[in-house]
């Protein structure tokens, strides 16, 4: 086992753990950024410089947009319902499964640690995605899930080529931007949280920006 890769895998998992369990919104975002920055490095061989740079820029951009969306004093998100130790055990168990089943039935082209980290991230993403009741927490879960899937892809299929890395960067940035704008929009009513609402907008103009002019 490559110790450097093991260290990166650990950073990915710890970042994901923080993202999934922290109640402070910005701490959780920081955890996600660590995960997204470290994930592309968890490959053997490393991606080309162009692809790697694109991934890093996309991860930081996504994190920055989320950071902007959480401006305000002590904004909180849902955090883990079961506590971070339970999440940590869950992630560890998933990582063991991922490591043990590396290749998923066929010879793999990437490192087993990528599969392990990918499984851990996917496991950590399930709870926020399924039970999340605020926009940011669900968004963080989606970030973890996509990062996990990309790691599994690297573990199974090997290091992506430059074009795929660029497209991955586009996906990461789009996801970050989408969650950021949704989180920002959720707060436009003045409340300092990201809670979802069961009430649907019943606009007289239906789904339009404003009422169209009446018949003449």
């Amino acid at each position, binding site marked *: 086992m490559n110790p450097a890769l093991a260290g990166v895998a650990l950073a990915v998992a710890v970042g994901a753990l923080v993202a999934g369990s922290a109640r402070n919104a910005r701490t959780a975002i920081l955890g996600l950024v660590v995960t997204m920055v470290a994930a592309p490095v968890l490959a053997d061989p490393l991606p080309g410089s162009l692809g790697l740079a694109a991934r890093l820029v996309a991860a930081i951009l996504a994190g920055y947009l989320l950071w902007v969306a959480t401006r305000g004093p002590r904004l909180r998100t849902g955090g883990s319902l079961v506590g971070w130790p339970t999440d940590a055990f869950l992630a560890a168990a998933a990582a063991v499964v991922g490591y043990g089943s590396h290749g998923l039935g066929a010879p793999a082209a990437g490192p087993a640690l990528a599969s392990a980290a990918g499984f851990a991230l996917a496991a950590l993403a399930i709870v926020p995605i399924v039970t999340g009741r605020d926009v940011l927490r*669900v968004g963080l879960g989606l970030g973890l899930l*996509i990062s996990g899937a990309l790691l599994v892809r690297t573990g199974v299929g090997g290091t992506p080529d430059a074009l795929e890395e660029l*497209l991955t960067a586009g996906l990461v940035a789009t996801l970050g931007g989408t969650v950021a704008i949704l989180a920002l929009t959720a707060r436009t009513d003045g409340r300092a949280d990201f809670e979802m*609402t069961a009430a649907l907008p019943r606009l007289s103009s239906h789904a339009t920006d404003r009422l169209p002019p009446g018949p003449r």
Partner: protein
Amino acid sequence: MSLVLFVVVTMAFTGLALGLRARPRLATGIALIGLVTAIVVAVAIVPGQLTVVGGGALATSAYLRLFLIFGSVIGLALAVSGLAGGSRRDAPTVTLGILASVGLTLGLLDPRAAVLVATAGGLFGVLVTLVPNGGRAGATIGIRESRAVAVAGALAIAATAWFGRDLSGLTAQPVVFGLAYLGFAVAVALRFGAIPFHLWAARLADVVPETALPNLTAYAPASHALGALAWIDLSVAPIAQDLGPDRLVVIAIAVASIVLAAVAAFVQDDIEHILGYSIIGDAGVVILALAAIGPDTWGPTRTWILAFVIARSAFAAWVAGVRAGFWTGRVADLRGWALRSPLLTVAFGLVVVASVGFPGLAAFDARTEIVQGALTGPLTPVVLVATLAPIAYYGRLLVIGFLRPDRVLEPVDAWRPVVKPLDLTAVRPWLSTTWDANRAFSTGAIALVLAVMALATAGGAFGGPAAAAEGPPVLASPHPLGAPSASSAPVAPGAPATSGAPPSETAVPQPSAEPSGTSSTNPSADPTETPFVAPSATPAGPTASGSIATPTPVPSVGQ
């Protein structure tokens, strides 16, 4: 290169319109210009081109060209209809962004890269859910849509990654084969909002303008489905044999969507939800096609997707026309709509014929072939009849349309063009007055144009069925199953295959218009070269020359 131009142009206009979002009029104008430009560059796409860039490759085909032309035309028509009848300021921009993502998704030869773009495109569409004065509710629906898109994306990434490597070392077929297939099929179902994954899609109809709905729930997911179809035919079908339980799940989702979506559309109170469920019902046929693993349904499925997307867009334009003209979307309040608006009545009739069809119509025959290809036994006629269920909700709308109006709906001349004499001293006010006076007429006319287009496409016009029958372009691969290799640069004739190589372009032979099982000289066409021998199967494989090849047909599993 022509596809790269399309992608660059649409992305540039998307970025420009997004940058000017704070100035809605300007952003909308830029987006409309972008949509017009998109039509031009889509028409200019040359089928059969291959562009190698950054270790990946983009290929064009007649079908891709047709799909992008239709998408651009529909996008422009619905954007104008939305402007006349009321829409969201981001809708045209989102349409442009989705066009760019669809172009890339269909053009990319590596399915692992294509699913990334398809997912990003779906996430970009969430922008339309941002409701003015209803931020939290819009954000709630938006994050639910994002959840569906991202989960679908994650499933598709994992599924394509599993197959996208050298599988020659396999000695036994693991259960993961079926799970990967099921994962991608479920991903497509999630993107369409198929039953039972439909809750987010149903809510979407509450906040998204009717003119933007087909883009989010039909056009963009259709590109995902086309990618899944190609992936299944090229990667799954040649090697996987025992997909019985997995196929059953896919069939169950498809049949539930076809039947229950029609029931749901029938009982809805407002036309936006009818539109939403009608899209889900038609998407059920697409999902059913994913269960018909084999070459027989390849052409019909792509024909159906083309016809379904256009027919549902035309239906959306009709809904927008009704809302613009009658100021309501409640079905109970629409008594007499057909008597009041001949324009919308004709458009409605054409939409019904295009989407339900009759024997001899290309879309109808394609749907029949899909059902017969995916199902066997007594379920086949039952599902065939179920695909005609939309007649029920169309009939309900028509009956209400011919009832005596119970209120004054609008002046009779609202459905005719109203043009006052041009006042050269005040052109701008004249334009504004004319636009306002013709809002109902404009939306109705656009609905009529799209309905004619839908009927023509359903009838096989524009070369749709021929383009749909073309096999997917595949690059030569050093791996025996023809799947994209891990970390390997695709090889195009005369192009360097190193990562980061400058884009190079090579004209490649057009894939043949029909399955080439008998004429293939593919060295790996011998089924004994695959780890899992399918009797009489001729799996797709690499060509000796490293050029785009037409996949060879594979018999449907379980048929």
